[in-house]
């Protein structure tokens, strides 16, 4: 049961409703990816204008979440979906919650990049580390959404496994920032903001893992949350 066959219901209208929901989730995913890319770019290029725009655009992500949620509720009420249709709706409701939170993290990147511009000093030491962490989570998010779009369990599991790298990078960066803070307490405000940016990126990695786990549930009907990766790998790869 690896494919959804959304176009095969006897009810043509039901096909359209599910397809519409799926398309909106992909649209929301694209929007969130763009927000993360722009937020990161604003932070790294010290582009206050772009940062403000990211913060301002978060409402679009929120509006899509509300809209998709409502459509899912309608399908539950009117169609009583079962089996893969039910799993699709449950998965979508969960995926959009995580996407909305990724949107919030992107908004934070935007806001902090504006704030950081206001503080005079540069942040030379961290740009490279933040860029590296940012690229890692951006590719994770993109791959998680691809896995959702293609119902690709292998890709979902491999993508989720990359969160270890993200966590390692984040911890390294956190240590550096803590040391810096001890050495130069006058920069506390700025260093905290950089820490929060790093934290926001790390959280995007976590949300991407969640999306990957929902993909496995959608395709295989198995809930792998809170299961060790070794066990998941041995079962599905």
């Amino acid at each position, binding site marked *: *049961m690896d*494919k*959804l*066959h*959304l*176009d*095969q*219901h*006897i*009810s043509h209208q*039901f096909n359209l409703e599910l397809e519409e929901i*799926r398309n909106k989730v*992909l649209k929301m*995913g*694209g*929007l969130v*990816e*763009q927000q993360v*890319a*722009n937020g990161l*770019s604003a932070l790294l290029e010290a*582009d206050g*204008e*772009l940062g403000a*725009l990211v913060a301002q655009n978060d409402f679009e992500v929120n509006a899509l979440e509300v809209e998709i949620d409502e459509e899912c509720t309608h399908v539950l009420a009117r169609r*009583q*979906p*079962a*089996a*893969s*249709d*039910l*799993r699709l709706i449950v998965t979508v409701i969960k995926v959009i919650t995580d996407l909305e939170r990724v949107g919030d993290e992107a908004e934070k990147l935007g806001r902090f990049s504006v704030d950081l511009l206001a503080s005079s000093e540069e942040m030379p030491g961290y740009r490279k580390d933040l860029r590296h962490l940012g690229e890692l989570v951006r590719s994770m998010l*993109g791959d998680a*959404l*691809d896995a959702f*779009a*293609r*119902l690709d369990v292998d890709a979902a599991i491999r993508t989720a496994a990359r969160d270890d790298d993200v966590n390692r990078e984040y911890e390294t960066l956190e240590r550096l920032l803590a040391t810096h803070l001890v050495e130069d307490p006058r920069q506390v405000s700025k260093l905290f903001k950089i820490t929060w940016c790093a934290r926001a990126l790390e959280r995007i990695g976590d949300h991407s893992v969640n999306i990957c786990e929902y993909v496995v549930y959608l395709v295989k*009907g*198995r809930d792998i949350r809170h299961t060790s990766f070794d066990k998941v790998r041995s079962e599905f790869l």
Partner: protein
Amino acid sequence: MSIVADDILHRPRHLDMPLKDDATDAFERLTGTVGDVTADDPKMRTANVDVFYGAKQAIHDVSLDIGNNEVIAMIGPSGCGKSTFLRCLNRMNDTIPSCRVTGSMSLDGEDLYGAELDPVLLRARVGMVFQKPNPFAKSIYDNVAYGPRIHGLASNRAELDDIVVDSLKKAGLHDEVKDRFEAPGTSLSGGQQQRLCIARTIAVSPEVILMDEPCSALDPIATARIEELIDELRQNYAIAIVTHSMQQAARVSQRTAYFHLGKLVEVGDTNQVFTNPRHELTENYITGRFG
């Protein structure tokens, strides 16, 4: 300004959606039943059952247990053999001359089709409720008392009264009819008539209750009452229900069996069948897909 936005938004993200296998292929590839056909505490067991109407085979090699204190729902498209199978369980098909049943069916280990088994007594032990409520053209009291009378279950009027009252209570009908036992059964509403038929079935102390679309002629409120009753009856009986309503199967049963063109395709825990069916044909049916 936005560095990669266009690339991200326009990256193709299409579902890999090949044409589904033709349903007849899936059916032809069907070798046996998917899932566990046995019950933890079996009341009735059937193995390798074939049923023929003349030369036409209606059931192919079905094996399925019906467990104590559980409701098993049998679902499937029209003509899939679910009602035929249900009717074999209390030898209702004996009344059809061209019908031939092979394979083994037993109740508590006793062969249903054995020479020593009296089908009339069997039908008291394995009761049946039909699609359309079919009360006898008698009073409410006599409808329920009919079975106990012919089976000699009561030695005097007081005992018979007890059985009638008790059966009506178990069927959730007593409060509504206690003041008019002598009114004709046919004077009741459709939902009440169906509960009267259930009371009539219960009155002979059956061990198994078979239900063939018991709610298809009832409105949603009467249906909800019957479903609530089915859940209560489960404490004391083994119940098998044939239904066209998948939501009903999902609501009332603990196990679900999916029949297709005379074969038993899949049996499983109802939660599993309705969230993650293992066979493509089951999936297609319960999600309303072509097939």
